């Protein structure tokens, strides 16, 4: 079985790579398998973990013997979960165009909850905390910082400030404001350069991982 498995995995891997030569039947076959399998994967996992594990077990808790030897619910049934399930079923209604509008209710619920949570989360963690973290004494509390750290502090403060200036749309980029924005865009470019480097690193790692599979696990040429 192990042999079959390895050959299947290798067949699929090479099939996807054949796209690099050109779009072909082998690639399309592997792609279709991928689409089907991943949709099915989610289907199964969500069934067991959420619809069974959370909803069903929550509403109908498994029975267990208590200390007195009676068969009782192992936890209090949580009937409120039924509301969630009803909303979920309404979501599926979208498949039938005639009653598709019903699916707006659960959609509204999802959009509303994410908006409410996002508003607070992003405001506190990604704005307030970041502004707070940028308010730093440039030379440290007692001049204890080295030149390296002082320059670093300066770079952080100036970079963040000028970066914000660049994304400020209510004032024309002219004069000192324009020059400040210029420094801002330079900082952002350095940032993008770093992201560029890291993205390249990431993509290459994935390829290396697959090559490790092909030459190591499959063909056994490397350890």
């Amino acid at each position: 079985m192990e042999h079959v498995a390895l050959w299947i995995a290798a067949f699929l891997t090479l099939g996807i790579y054949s796209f690099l030569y050109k779009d072909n039947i082998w690639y399309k076959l592997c792609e279709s398998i991928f689409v089907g399998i991943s949709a099915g994967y989610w289907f199964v996992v969500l069934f067991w973990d959420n619809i069974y594990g959370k909803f069903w077990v929550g509403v109908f808790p498994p029975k267990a013997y208590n200390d007195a030897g009676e068969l009782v619910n192992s936890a209090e049934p949580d009937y409120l979960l039924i509301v969630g399930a009803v909303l979920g079923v309404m979501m599926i209604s979208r498949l039938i165009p005639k009653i598709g509008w019903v699916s707006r209710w659960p959609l509204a619920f999802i959009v509303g909850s994410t908006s409410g949570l996002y508003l607070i989360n992003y405001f506190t963690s990604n704005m307030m905390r970041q502004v707070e973290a940028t308010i730093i004494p440039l030379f440290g509390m007692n001049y204890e910082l080295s030149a390296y750290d002082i320059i670093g502090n300066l770079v952080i403060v100036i970079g963040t400030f000028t970066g914000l200036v660049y994304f400020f749309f209510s004032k024309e980029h002219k004069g000192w404001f324009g020059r400040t924005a210029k420094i801002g865009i330079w900082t952002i470019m350095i940032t993008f350069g770093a992201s560029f480097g890291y993205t390249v690193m990431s993509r290459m790692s994935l390829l290396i991982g697959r090559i490790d599979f092909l030459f190591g696990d499959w063909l056994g040429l490397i350890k």
Partner: protein
Amino acid sequence: MHVGKSTSLYLPQLFFLFLFICNFLLLSLVYAQTDDPLLNSEDSSVAIPDSELVVVAPVTSLIAEDYKYDDGKQINLSWVPSIDDQLVGSKVLGYRLFRIIDDGKPELLAKLRCGANSYSDGKLKSESVYSYYLEAFSKNFIATSTRTVPISPEREWINFDRKYLFLLAFIIGGAVIFFIESARRGKKLFVRKIAGLEAVDEAIGRATEMGRPILFIPGILDMNDVQTLAGITILGRVSQQIANYDTKIRMPVSRSLVMTAARETIKAAYQTAGRPDQYSDDMVNYVTDEQFGYVAAVDGIMVREKPATVFLMGAFFAESLILAETGNSVGAIQIAGTARPAQLPFFIAACDFTLIGEELFAASAYLSGEPKQLGSLKGQDVGKGIAMAAILIGVLAETIGTAWNVEFMNDVVRWLTILFTTQ
């Protein structure tokens, strides 16, 4: 167990309890010695023969306070450490904190190190009553403090710790709504020039001159994504020019809804230009929802038709690279715009002009003049203004304050820290 039947039954039980407590204390001391070097402060304590009793004073002023601004779950304790608790040569080895719930038995809540003077007890119930006492212990002596007055944690309505956060959120949110309203009333709101947008006309002119088509890619997400919407808004501007100059446009899309919207937009532009007959539905066609399938198709179109100008405006993922590369190889001028930070570097490196992140939305707001978009942009500018001001003032004040110890500056910093703290 038959409780309180006769007093004679109590004695053995008490004895066992006593043994048990002794055992427990002994164990916890051993545990402290093996596990916690701070509690086992042999180096700092004065060398005293084991037989001698090390009498220590108990802690004083033990106060239990309800933690405000929660749903009745926390009590904060504070006390003055024992006078025998000193940094060097401390006789006190540590403290043990006990809790009594609803007049029940005292339970050990925590072991604390020397010098501790506060503790917060979370996960309480607002229906119960709690009281606490502390033991300061030395090598062989325990000094117990007085018990606190029993209190129960209370449920409060508003978390006043977060009042400034609320205030700031209120100001920024208010600004968004204010500007949306004033834009609706027809007030003109200023948005700065955006470099990428100015390049649009030039790029269309080039395509017209060369007699080659323009390719417009609105990203691979559906109409519910703001970036796609912004892309379609920019398409509106592009198609006006195209209709005026009668340039060809090709627009393969990966979502059927985007196809409908794009057709409407281009059709409207041709109608405004007074030549609706020139418009055809073939300008926009749906390819496939599949990411790489779509990319392969667009690649093919680029290689075959060699567009003079390529617009990449919308939400892009991994395909950004492939599209930009092919566009580059056929010698097209490329103008890109996306708000996805991971793809922006590739666009900047491979395209001639790039609308970076929010610039895409600003461009869209500027072009569409929609109050919703303009107002939000302005409101966000207020937020950025607050952030910039806070950073500038805060850093200056803190640097000056710490360097020359200027009290006023320190006050400013303190005030700003309170304002921006999220805890």
